[in-house]
């Protein structure tokens, strides 16, 4: 049977797509628990994902791959608008340094701090660059989680603090930019005195309890809110070995819309799992936390041509309106479930597919128009396309478990 091995090795591997699939798999994973002290962890949220996405054009092949994982679609649009807002407010610190490794050039551009995380922006001619490193504040090494994302030639590396820094501190960052395996990389050390407006981060310990656990701390800045939740043993989704169930928390603003989570990681202290969520919040006075569970895999799939007469009802989804320009087709739809889906619409799962079932990409994340009213746009095409809805019979949530947290 040597021929079997030989032929297996001859089987072509679509390396770029495979790497993308692997990164998406990691991005979807529930992170292994982080020890409280001494170890850096990687995020499983959007921030860990580094993919090449052209700002003007996304190859259909890549987009097909990406469209299958809703969480990645944030890369198509700046849902994590924190950096942009900080730049508008003039709080970006310019960097001027160029690094090189194995024919790759990394040009560092700017550094910012949003209250709980440092962002390093860079330009590169490489497709995927991973950023790792160590952070010291006033000489003390910090327990950070790190991640990053890259779109086209521009990327960000992120370092999330475990506890907020003071308004003024000496920052030292030892950074490593390299390939996925870390075998080719360039390193540098940044030193910067950081001065923030007074009381930039307000911290409270609200001790708000729910069925899922207790909110132990809130760190609120003009840009982000970091929520730490000590999970109740019965709701400790970091310990579940059930691979087929997702358990998580949804954060909802007072208008009923889901708040974007831009970072998420876990740790453990004295046997209690603590999840940290970093939310992109601007001028919020309160938020609701809603626990939910969702079983995998998907249920039955239903398809209907996208040009069928409206309204189109597929399971819980009703497509109500269609708009078309030369470049884009968009549809508005509602979801009958009371559950608030976020801009990924990941748990609801409506997608557009071609004749053979390949996912057709979205040009932007699903736009949330109201509590359960969405807009879904994608580039116009002459190819026959279909809406495909996958049943999620086992999406479970209990409104009585929803709790409100007032922000400082």
């Amino acid at each position: 049977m040597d021929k079997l091995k030989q032929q297996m090795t001859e089987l072509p591997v679509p390396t770029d797509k495979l790497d993308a699939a692997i990164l998406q798999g990691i991005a979807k994973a529930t992170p292994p628990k982080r020890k409280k002290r001494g170890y850096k962890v990687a995020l499983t949220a959007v921030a860990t994902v580094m993919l090449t996405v052209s700002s003007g054009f996304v190859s259909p092949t890549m987009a097909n791959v990406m469209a299958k994982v809703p969480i990645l679609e944030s890369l198509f649009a700046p849902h994590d608008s924190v950096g942009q807002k900080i730049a508008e407010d003039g709080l970006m610190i310019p960097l001027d340094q160029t690094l090189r490794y194995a024919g790759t050039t990394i040009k560092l551009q700017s550094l910012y701090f949003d209250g709980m995380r440092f962002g390093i922006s860079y330009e590169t001619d490489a497709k995927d660059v991973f950023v790792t490193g160590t952070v010291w504040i006033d000489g003390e090494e910090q327990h950070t989680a790190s991640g990053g994302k890259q779109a086209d030639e521009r990327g960000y590396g992120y370092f999330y603090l475990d506890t907020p820094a003071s308004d003024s501190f000496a920052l030292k960052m030892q950074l490593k930019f390299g390939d996925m395996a870390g075998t080719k990389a360039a390193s540098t050390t940044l030193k910067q005195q950081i001065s923030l407006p007074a009381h930039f981060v307000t911290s409270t310990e609200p001790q708000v309890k729910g069925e899922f656990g207790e909110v132990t701390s809130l760190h609120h800045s003009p840009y982000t809110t970091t929520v730490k939740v000590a999970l109740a043993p019965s709701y400790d989704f970091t310990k579940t070995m059930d691979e087929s169930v997702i358990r998580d928390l949804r954060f909802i603003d007072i208008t009923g819309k889901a708040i974007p989570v831009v970072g998420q990681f876990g740790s453990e202290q004295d046997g209690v799992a603590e999840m940290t969520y970093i939310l992109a919040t601007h001028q919020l006075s309160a938020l609701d936390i809603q626990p939910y569970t969702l079983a995998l895999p998907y249920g039955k799939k239903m398809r209907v041509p996208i040009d069928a007469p409206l309204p189109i009802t597929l399971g819980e989804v009703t497509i109500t309106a269609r708009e078309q320009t030369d470049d884009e087709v968009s549809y508005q739809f509602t979801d009958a479930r009371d559950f608030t889906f976020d801009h990924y619409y990941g748990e609801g799962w409506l997608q557009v597919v071609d004749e053979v079932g390949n996912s057709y990409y979205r040009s932007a994340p699903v736009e949330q128009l109201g509590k359960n009213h969405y807009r879904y746009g994608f580039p116009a095409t002459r190819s026959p396309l279909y809406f495909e809805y996958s049943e999620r019979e086992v999406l479970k949530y209990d409104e009585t478990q929803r709790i409100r947290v007032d922000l400082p």
Partner: protein
Amino acid sequence: MTPLQRAQRGDSEAFLQLLAPNKDKLYRMALLYMKNETDALDVVQETVCRAFTNIGTVREERYFSTWLVRILLNTATEFLRRTSKIVNFDNRIEPTTPIEPIAERLDLLNAVSALPDAYKTVILLRYYEDLTVPQIAAMLQQPEGTVKTHLHRGMAILKKQFKGDDAYGQA
């Protein structure tokens, strides 16, 4: 600290380091089950997701590769069951996903790919992964006799199909 220990603490870079020597193998095995690139990539993605989520269950690094393959096999089987549930509202749509033939010159792979899943699995584990029958039995939680039967039947189908081709050696 070893890459496994770092991965078990949530270090995705260390996890990728463990994954790197296995990733092509995962894709190729997935392709033999799913028979098209898109679905094979989906299976790899889900396998990676499950593996990183449950990396804490791996005791020693030398078992990582076998453990990963077991997750892949479970995931591929699950995906195959799932695709059989598609309901089309529009009768104009063909209900099945077209099969993209693996390159014609890879005749043996095409034949293995077409085998019933149970036979395909043991043949891949025995002759591609080089696992022994007891190891396969332990991995699949099947009696050794069942593994041997599946191997024998799978090989019989292949031999019948490739009569006269001496490239396969002895089962």
